[in-house]
Structure formats: C-alpha cells, structure tokens
C-alpha cells in the first residue's frame, strides 16, 4: 500500500515537474457514514457519488458552499437570443486534465452525451436535452426539446470526463450494472478537478492528491495536498475518531454530539441548513389502507384526517429535542433557497391536539385507527428518532402507528412502488426550483413523472399546470403558476412537512469547513486555518 502510493507519487512528481517547490504535505482525513457506490460520474445520482465527483471532476457550473451558482468549466452561459431552445456555454481556456490533456469542447460533448446514455442515472436531469454540439474548441451549444429556462440548474452535478482517456480505457459507456463487467471508470477517474485520484478501495478508503496544474490553483485558499476519504458507518465510531484525532473532518455529525464537541478541545463544529425538507407522506390513493384496522375505507383519503395529522405533530418539540435545534420547522416542502418558497407557506400548521382530535372524530374516527409508519434509519438526520416522536404524538390523537424503520435500500423502492400507507421522506432540490418538487412529489405517477409520489395523489388539472412550467419562458408568469400550484398542494395536506434539516460538520480546529447547502462539499473552497 505505502510502496504503491510512493510509486504513484514519484510518477506524479515526474509528470508535473512544476512541483519542484516543495510544499508541506497536509492531509485532510475525511469521514462520512457512507461511501460513493462508484466513481463513474454519470452512473449514480446520489449525494455521496457527487461528493467524489466534485473534487476529482468538475461540472460546467456549480453551486458554492452558500448555494450560489457559479461557473466552473464554463465561464459564460446564455440562451441564444434568436433560439430560446438553445443554450450556449463558453468554456474556460487553459484547463488541463490530470493526465495533461487539454480540456476542450469535445470533452463536454462527449461527457454530456455519455450522461444521456440509457444506463446513466444522470439522464433524468437531461431529459429535455435534444443535442449537444461543439461550436469551436471553447464553445458548446445544448439544444433542448422546447425552451428550458432553467437548464443550467440541472448541470451542477454533470461532470466532464476526458474523452481521450475514456476512449483509451474503454470507459465510453456508462458503467452498466446489468452487465457483469466493471467499467474502468468505476475505480479510476480522469477529470480536471483540484484533486486527482491516487487509490480507491470501495467502502474502505479513497485517497486523492492535489492536482498541481489545476486551473484554479491560485484561488484555492488552503494548503491541503491530500484527501483520505473513509466511510465509517457507526456514528459513535465517527465521533470517537474525530475526538481521538484519527480523522480531521466528519461530514455528518449527529446533532446530539454538537454541543459536546463544541466545547471539546481541538474540535470545531459548523452547522447550517441543507437544502432538504423532511416530511411525511400519506397514501390517499388506495381504497383501503393495507396496515389499518379500518376496513373498506381509507382514513387518509379524508382531508380532515390529513389536517389532523399535520396539526398533531409538535414540530417545535421535534426541533428542540430530536434535532437539538438543528432544524427549521417547516410548513412546505421547499427550503428558503428554492424558487417559489414563501415564508407564509412555510409557516408550520398550528400544533393543537384538541383540534386534531376533533377533526379525526369529525371524519368518523372518534376512536382513531391503526396504521404503519415506514421510515428510514440510515438516511436523514435522526430519521428514526423523528418517526418515533411522530408515533407518540399521533398516539395522542388516537392514531396507533406501528413504526418500521429500515434501510433506505428497502425504503425508497417501496415508496416508488406506492407500497406504503404512511412514510417518511426527504427531498433535496438540486435545481433550487419548485418544479422539481411538484414534478416528483405531487404530479400523477407516470414512467417519467411523479416517480417519488408514493401517496397516490393525482389531479389531472394540477398535472397540466406542473407540466406547463417546463416550457414557460416568462419567469414572472412561471412564478405566478408556481405560487398557484403551491396554494393548491398545501390545501391538499397530502404531505405533512416536518422541517428542513441542518447538517453539522465536525472537524479538527485547524480546519474551518463551512456547511455546503447541497452537502456535496468542494474541498477547494475550504479556507485554511493553520494554528
């Protein structure tokens, strides 16, 4: 291992003789609960995968820690004045891949098309794209199927690979899990990002080394020369490792440890909101709940029951006790960063047990009813704790909910299949636009829309309004439609929003890493603090 690393380092030093000026090596030992499933940047659309991507690869545009959109490999972008269906991107000049190859429009065309392959998980963000063409070495145009004013928002996790490297290594096809072969890009990577891959042992450790020829090297405000990323599933072990100085940074600190770690010697804690509302879904679509003692009818189909559920949840108590203050109670499924968010809509329903009881009784369930609440136990901050608290609160209005907490690997597909009566879900909104919420959570389920609508909620009129957002170029008009839709879906009470979760980074105090709203931190933006 160490000899191998040494050999690689030597090789690297040879290739990049610019590094003659020796810099003191500084390693960032980074821990998180889970690992990326693959390094292939187009193969899986999940946060942990994008974390790797954002440090080795780069997209055309990205969001900084504060969520602001900024150019990465693109310097300028616009919709062509004469063609609202075509976007033009000016590419950054003098950018090199880790292997020394120059970054050109060919790489962009190749990568975007690669991300649109049938096996690519990223393709859903590019469904509106018709074609990608090279204008010159540093200009690319993306033609969409209709006008798409917000396309650029969909490109923040769309990473650019070296075309030549991919061709040489047989990695032009996205890693296809259906075939029994491994893609070269699964465990290797060739991007333009600030770090280059040194070694990767899935679920154990991934080592990255600073890329000395990174185009933005001068803007980097830290002296981190190496990243060692280690997944540590047990929360307590992660915290122990941080306390004992075995890791420098824990990306997902449990909220209960925040206070203690804030006072611990040599440890710093940064917290901040993530762009990810957490909410409960109620199945209104089935004629009879599968898990209920009420037969022949579906209590959740009655809006009064749904209102009662919303009113019975003490969001403040959840924030104070379960989340230890690390959340913002919510009334809508959108964080303040999202286009369409308003403070009024986000005001949580009033917590009133008596009123909730009355509503349940009015709906014809004076003695309540039973059901099963499905929940993850490995995805969101204290997800199982939230669900336990909800079960207790609902018990006070007569809803006897049995809690089933399991892995997201079981939970998510069941939601997508519409198998749950009552469930917890969180929704990250990478496009920062309400359409992403409507289209996936409220729209009638089809093969391409409503994929995460496990409630069976369906309103054809609403669907039309949601679809109209796709091609509306007049932003004012579009925003008006969004407000209208919000009013309607809020009244439906089909979801019970709980809060926007905060995330906490714990680190050794010689680092100061701000919380990334998308929770895909980019190490180059870290400002170094040397003590």
């Amino acid at each position: 291992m160490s000899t191998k690393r040494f050999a690689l380092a030597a090789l690297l030093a040879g290739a990049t003789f610019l590094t003659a000026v020796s810099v003191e090596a500084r390693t960032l030992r980074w821990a998180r609960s889970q690992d990326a499933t693959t390094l292939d940047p187009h193969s899986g659309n999940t946060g942990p995968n994008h974390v790797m991507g954002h440090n080795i690869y780069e997209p055309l545009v990205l969001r900084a820690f504060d969520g602001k959109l900024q150019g990465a490999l693109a310097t300028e972008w616009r919709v062509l004045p004469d063609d609202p269906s075509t976007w033009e991107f000016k590419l950054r000049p003098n950018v090199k891949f880790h292997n020394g190859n120059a970054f050109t429009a060919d790489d962009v065309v190749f990568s975007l098309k690669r991300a649109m392959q049938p096996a690519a998980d990223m393709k859903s963000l590019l469904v509106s794209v018709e074609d990608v063409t090279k204008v010159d070495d540093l200009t690319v145009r993306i033609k969409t199927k209709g006008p798409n004013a917000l396309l650029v928002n969909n490109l923040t996790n769309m990473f650019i690979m070296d075309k030549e490297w991919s061709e040489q290594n047989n990695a032009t096809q996205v890693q296809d899990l259906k075939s029994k072969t491994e893609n070269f890009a699964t465990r290797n990577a060739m991007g333009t990002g600030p770090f280059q891959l040194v070694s990767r042992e899935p679920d154990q450790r991934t080592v990255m080394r600073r890329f000395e020829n990174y185009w933005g090297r001068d803007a980097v405000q830290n002296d981190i020369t190496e990243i060692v990323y280690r997944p540590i599933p047990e929360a307590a072990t992660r915290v122990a490792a941080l306390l004992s100085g075995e890791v420098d940074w824990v990306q997902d600190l449990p909220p209960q440890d925040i206070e203690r770690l804030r006072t611990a010697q040599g440890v710093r804690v940064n917290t901040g909101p993530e762009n990810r509302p957490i909410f409960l879904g109620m199945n209104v679509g089935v004629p009879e709940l599968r898990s209920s003692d009420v037969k022949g009818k579906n209590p959740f189909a009655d809006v009064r029951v749904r209102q009662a559920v919303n009113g019975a949840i003490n969001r403040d108590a959840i924030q104070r006790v379960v989340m230890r203050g690390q959340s913002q109670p919510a009334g809508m499924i959108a964080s303040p960063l999202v286009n369409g968010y308003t403070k009024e809509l986000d005001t949580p329903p009033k917590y009133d047990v008596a009123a909730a009881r009355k509503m349940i009784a009015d709906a014809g369930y004076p003695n309540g009813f039973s059901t099963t609440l499905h929940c993850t136990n490995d995805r969101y901050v204290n997800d199982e704790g939230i669900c336990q608290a909800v079960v207790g609160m609902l018990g006070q209005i007569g809803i006897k909910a049995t809690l089933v907490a399991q892995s997201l690997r079981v939970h998510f597909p069941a939601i997508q299949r519409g198998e749950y009566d009552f469930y917890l879900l969180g929704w990250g909104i990478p496009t920062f636009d309400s359409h992403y919420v409507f289209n996936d959570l409220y729209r009638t389920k089809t093969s391409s829309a409503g994929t995460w609508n496990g409630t069976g909620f369906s309103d054809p009129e609403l669907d039309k309004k949601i679809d109209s957002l796709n091609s509306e170029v007049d932003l004012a008009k579009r925003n008006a439609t969004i407000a209208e839709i919000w009013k309607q879906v809020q009244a439906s009470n089909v979801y019970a929003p709980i809060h926007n979760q905060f995330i906490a980074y714990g680190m050794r105090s010689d680092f100061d890493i701000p919380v990334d709203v998308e929770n895909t931190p980019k190490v180059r933006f870290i400002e170094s603090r040397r003590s």
Partner: protein
Amino acid sequence: MIAYLLRSLVQAALVMLAVAFIAFSMFRFVGDPIASIVGQDATLKDRQELSRALGLDDPMPVQFARFLANAAQGDLGLSYRQGRPVAALLGERLPATIELALLSALLALVVGLTLGVYTAIRRNGLLANVIMSASLVGVSLPTFLIGIGLIYIFSVELRWLPSFGRGDVVRLGWWTTGLLTESGRKSLVMPVVTLAFFQLTLIMRLVRSEMLEVMRTEYVRFARARGIPDRVIHFRHALRNTMVPVVTITGLQLGSVIAFAIVTETVFNWPGLGALFVQSVQVVDVPVMAAYLMFVGLVFVVVNLLTDLVYLMLDPRLRSASAAPAR
C-alpha cells in the same frame, strides 16, 4: 483412511450445498435488489428491464441452479450495490478478516489454554477463583459492549489506540497485512482482544473442566502412585488427554471466530468480511451474502477436517481404528 477422508469430503460437499441453498434462498425475498442499483429516479421500465437482466424474474430453482453453476466456476456474481464481482470483493476483504480471526484465535487459544490449565491446577487458589469469576463476567458481557467500552477508554479518553479501521497496511502480493506497520499493529489490538474475549473464556472454562475431569481419572492417579512429578502429570498426562475433547470443540469455536467477527467488525469499522456481510444484509446484496455464507461454510468444513486430523494425531485409538477398521 482414504475412505474416511472421502466420506468426509462428500459430507463436506453436502454441507456446502445445504449452506449454499440457505444462503441463496433466504434473502431472495427480502428487500429489493433492484433498489440498490438504480438511483432515486428510476422509472418502472428501467426497473423491469433490470429485473429481467439480472434474472430476478426466473423461477427459484432456475435461479439457484444458475447460482450454483456460477459459484462452481468461481463466479459468485456481481454485487448489487457495488456492481463489482463478489469474488473480488471477498478477496479484498479476506485478508483483514483472516488476520483478525487468526490473531484472535491465537490469543484465545494461548491465553485460554494457559488460564484453563492454571485454574484447573490451582483449583482452589485465590487467583484461580478471581479468574473464574472474571470469566463469567466476560461471558455475560455482550461483544458490542466490550467494543464500545474499549473504544471509550483507549481511543477517546486515553487516545492510545485507533478506534476504527486497519491503519496502514502493507501489500504482499494479493495479501494485505497490518502487522508490518505501527499503525496497523495498533489498530489490531482492540478488535483482536474484543473478538478473542468470548472465545478465550469459553476455551478457558472448557480446558479447566476437561482437565479437572482428566485429573480424576485412574491413570492420573496411577501416574501419581508411580511418583511421577506433578509437572509431568499436568503437562504430559493431563494436558494431552484434555486436548482430545478440547480440540474438537475449540476447533469449531475457532472456525466460528470468522463469523463471530460480524459484531466486532461492525463496532470497529474493520474492513473485513463480517462488516461487508452486515452492510450487505442492510442493502439486500444477495450475491455478497450468499458468498459470505458459503465462505463461512467452507471455513467450517476446512476447520472440521483439520480438527479431525489433529484428533487423529492426538488419539492413537482413532488412528489404529481408522487404519484397520476391521480390528
């Protein structure tokens, strides 16, 4: 003797087949293997295609037969989660678990034997009684609590030992070892102790009671009546006779250390097979689980065979019986 070995091998094969069947069939229905492959935005069509491509729509016997045929060729399938060949995954994780298990087994064996013999010889001694009581506390402590406790004391409070992982490892061919680096050795200490603890107490108590049993036998009394020194009686006569039953049970116990490592590896985030198994159970990664179970079965079979051989070596009665069964 050859017939005996052949019979053992046939039995081993049957055991393996049974284990493979259990491994394959039990988790087949739990969870959704497809979920672990496609991201959050998979369409129904994608799911169906994938299901077909993975053969998840075929009848069970067909799936099992395919699984067996592939396994026989060393193809243990592709991890649902990682999309990598399971054989490669196991291969990567194997050294970590083997290293941990062997060291734990060694520790458990050496200390367990020593303490067992000691407490048997000094039956009523103060220290022996203290050790026996302590061993009961040990048996009553769940492995995960020991792990948590050790981490709290030695990693968090004292900061002497790392709380997770293997530290730096050195690659020797396809094998990796943590024994050649300081951080690797340090990382081994707590997991090895944790894993060895339960086995150690078991072996110790077993050795003690077997040895006490042997010490009451006529041949030990006769040896004493012949003036054979205690030392010789303890370590030549009693110990070897103790070893006959101890070897069988200890062998099986040590074989199970590998699977026992599930909890230890989870607590210490040890990058071994046990942790992989737990992760795989959580994500319903059928090929990995099946392969893991088959691996445990294989270890059982091999250990069993080795135990039989040691047994033959120790006990001349079996040796002559198997050499000339007609006698």
